[in-house]
């Protein structure tokens, strides 16, 4: 399982390094979302600084949907999805590999967005350990749930519209938990963020486990 996961993750990251779709499209989109928030909320009144954690995580959430769609779009060309089934790879390994690749991309995206909220919204990064831990747990949770729903929707003709409807309500707790944890961190009360961090960790573990169990049957459905 781990060997297969490493193989698939390596393949997905290699595809991304060569095609640069996430770098050239998803990342600018996330930054664009940050700028649009500034248009919607009056930047002079300090709203942005207060709302920075929430806006940051909303941008991450939307980008995660795109990243998941991209992750399964590369399997859609030339029937690669069938190739994946034919390859005899362990489905749990494929799930973990694809989720790891999505998580890696989201991690890079979060780093850039963090710089974005510091520069654009004037957020002060404090409690770096909590912020980092939140990013880690939330990213794993998003990638796991996203990959599970990605394969669920991948074989449908309406996947582009259905995936956000299915995925976004499910990851709503991640948005809530990560935002609250970041608020606690930025406000300098890291202790308040602990229960949220635990919630994010539980979410990540639950969806990793469900994904490992469900990916095989879902991949088999052509």
């Amino acid at each position: 399982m781990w060997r297969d996961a490493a193989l698939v993750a390596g393949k997905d990251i290699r595809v991304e390094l060569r095609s640069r779709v996430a770098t050239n499209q998803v990342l600018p989109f996330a930054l664009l979302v940050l700028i649009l928030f500034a248009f919607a909320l009056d930047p002079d009144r300090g709203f942005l600084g207060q709302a920075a954690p929430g806006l940051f995580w909303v941008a991450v959430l939307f980008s995660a949907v795109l990243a998941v769609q991209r992750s399964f779009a590369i399997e859609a060309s030339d029937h690669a999805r069938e190739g994946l089934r034919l390859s005899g790879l362990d489905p749990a390994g494929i799930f973990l590999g694809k989720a790891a690749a999505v998580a890696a991309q989201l991690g890079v995206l979060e780093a850039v967005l963090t710089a974005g909220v510091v520069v654009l919204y004037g957020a002060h990064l404090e409690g770096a350990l909590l912020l980092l831990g939140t990013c880690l747990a939330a990213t794993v949770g998003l990638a796991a749930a996203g990959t599970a729903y990605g394969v669920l929707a991948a074989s449908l003709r309406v996947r582009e519209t259905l995936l956000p409807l299915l995925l976004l309500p499910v990851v709503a707790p991640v948005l809530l938990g990560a935002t609250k944890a970041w608020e606690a961190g930025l406000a300098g009360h890291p202790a308040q963020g602990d229960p949220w961090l635990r919630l994010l960790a539980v979410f990540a573990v639950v969806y990793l486990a469900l994904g490992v169990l469900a990916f095989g049957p879902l991949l088999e459905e052509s």
Partner: protein
Amino acid sequence: MIITRRQARRPLTSSSSRRPGSLVRTATGVVGLASVAATVWLGLWVTPPSTNLGQLVRLLYIHPPVAWVAYLAFGVTAAASLLYLWRRTRSVVWDRLAAASGEVGVLFCGLTLVSGSIWGKATWGVWWTWDARLTSTALLFVLYLGYLALRRVPSDPGTRAKRSAVAAILAFADVPISYLSVYWWKTLHQTGTVLNPQRQVHVHGLMAWTLLLGFCAFTLVYAWLVAHRYAVEALAERQQGEGLARALAERRAEGRAA
């Protein structure tokens, strides 16, 4: 898919109205209708206004029962999906039950939101507050709207059944997590309408019986609706199954002609 094939030959439906199953269904419907009517009559005209809620207490006879049915329906959908996914109990019965219960659940969840919103307008003066229970119910509503949308995507019955069952489990796993998160986020809603000891004083006598009747009435209506919706699902599958038998015959004739 295999079961659908069997379905083509030996339909399990009880569409003929003389069967005992259908009799139970009709009885459930009649009793459900009567008890809903009784609840409405008791709730609107017979019971007295409450000392601290005034006339508003009347909404209490329908809002919690409707919410209960929504949660019950989603619980049934999740249980049926699990039973479908577990190999030893896999049967098309569970898929149909999950579909029927999910749809009825979405209806009642929507009604929970609307009646809760009316309750909020009357007590807090606003249609919506971001309190824990309203928000998590709204999330639940959207979560299962997605489930129904997934079910409506046309595909092979066996594939759809498995996919929907997995989706139901994935969604259901989110329910406690999102409830907890929203609960921590904000808590404004009065916790527990019946079981809370402070409130129990105000719900007594005829009012308590009316509320209990409300729970039973809407549960019966739920059972009746699910039974009908189940039959619709089964008949629709049979329609497809008979199409399949014809297709198989045509396909073979094609071979003989060649």
